[in-house]
């Protein structure tokens, strides 16, 4: 599939096999802009087989800058993973016509897959009400992270996160019928602390769901989810902060992701 950086318009070829069904974020190695790619809307089959015929299509509308600058989990700072799965994102030999970046330090095409599956932050969602639970603010904490990477005009490849061991969670992402919300391969798989925090967040939020399923369903239809379950969310958020340490809880976006994935049923409400 071909995706295009909404900032510098550079186009990149992306192996659809490496894109989970849910959203991922990619970083343009040319201009360093980070933007989302929604795996679920991509139909990899025709694009993978016929590069020349492909026109860059709007895989996902560019998001507001603040949203793109969502806080990234710490391990995003780790070095390139190209050595671990270099072939995954390598372009075909003939893949370099008009404006499609190619080459790079590993023969790649200049995209870095961000290991985060849900990039949104409630406070950035124009339509999204903000629940009064002191959730991590959508500040531009990603900016320093971007700057820590060496400025590299040469397009480069960084493979998506390979998990340390094949987790069923990841298998589900690839299996449409078994996909569950938010269960994408990602940062949480790579770092034990992050994995633990992500699991706790999802457990807490799924507790809210199963104990308030009818209220949730009704509120989701009425658009009153935040008001209906604000107290429950706040209580769980406080416990989450206490358990994972407040600073980490605020810096990471895991709790919010869990709210959107599980409680909002995939909508970006929080």
């Amino acid at each position, binding site marked *: 599939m071909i995706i295009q950086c909404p900032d510098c318009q550079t186009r990149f070829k992306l192996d659809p096999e490496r894109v989970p069904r849910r959203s991922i974020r990619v970083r343009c190695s040319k201009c360093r802009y980070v933007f989302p790619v929604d795996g679920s809307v991509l139909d990899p089959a025709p694009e993978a087989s016929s590069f020349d015929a492909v026109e860059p299509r709007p895989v996902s509308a560019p998001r507001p800058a603040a949203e793109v600058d969502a806080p990234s989990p710490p391990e995003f700072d780790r070095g390139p993973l190209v050595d671990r799965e270099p072939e995954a994102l390598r372009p075909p030999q003939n893949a370099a016509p008009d404006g499609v970046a190619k080459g790079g330090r590993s023969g790649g095409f200049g995209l870095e897959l961000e290991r985060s599956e849900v990039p949104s932050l409630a406070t950035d969602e124009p339509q999204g009400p903000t629940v009064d639970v002191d959730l991590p603010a959508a500040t531009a904490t990603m900016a320093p992270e971007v700057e820590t990477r060496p400025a590299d005009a040469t397009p480069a490849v960084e493979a998506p996160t390979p998990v340390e061991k094949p987790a069923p969670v990841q298998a589900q992402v690839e299996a449409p019928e078994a996909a569950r919300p938010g269960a994408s391969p990602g940062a949480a798989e790579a770092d034990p602390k992050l994995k633990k925090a992500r699991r706790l967040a999802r*457990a807490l939020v799924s507790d809210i769901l199963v104990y308030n399923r009818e209220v949730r369903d009704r509120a989701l239809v009425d658009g009153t989810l935040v008001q209906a379950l604000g107290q429950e969310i706040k209580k769980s958020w406080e416990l989450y902060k206490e358990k994972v340490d407040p600073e980490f809880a605020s810096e990471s976006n895991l709790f919010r992701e869990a709210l959107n994935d599980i409680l909002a049923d995939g909508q970006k409400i929080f």
Partner: protein
Amino acid sequence: MSLINYSSREINCKIVYYGPGLGGKTTNIQYVYDRLNPDTKGKLVTLATEMDRTLFFDFLPLELGTVKGFKTRFHLYTVPGQVYYNASRKLILRGVDGLVFVADSDECRIDANIESLYNLYDNLDEHNLDLKDIPLILQWNKRDVPGALPVEELETELNPQGFTSFEAVAVKGTGVFDTLKCVSKEVLHRLQN
């Protein structure tokens, strides 16, 4: 550890049903309770506190055979499953002789299952209890829900140690007594040794 009552010549064994909230722990115990001979069972006690949550434990004595001349009385407890009721869970775990972990097969509860199981391990550690000494049986409950996770996946995620496990649909009673008999047998086996 089991409590021995010499005057009544009874050994009291405590079995705790652990697991995430609304996973079926209470359903298990309620099903067992409803089918026991009224002469052999005590009173079922339910505690509900705080914001109408299903925070409770059940108490159910169940007599099974004798060990060295002592009758055995099983006390069955559930714990509150929600993440933030850990203090109660920790308290109820004290003196446990056998454990049943009731996992919810619903895919949206996989993280809650894992979190609860890790929480069980943590709480056992705090009581200086070791799973080498205490039998743990896992139950894959709600096998009838649409989109239930495959048993293989539950085994991979929750049971890498290979503890004995049973599939169950507790509301229908499927697997409930299999689980209880297995854990009881394990507890008795340890008592005899």
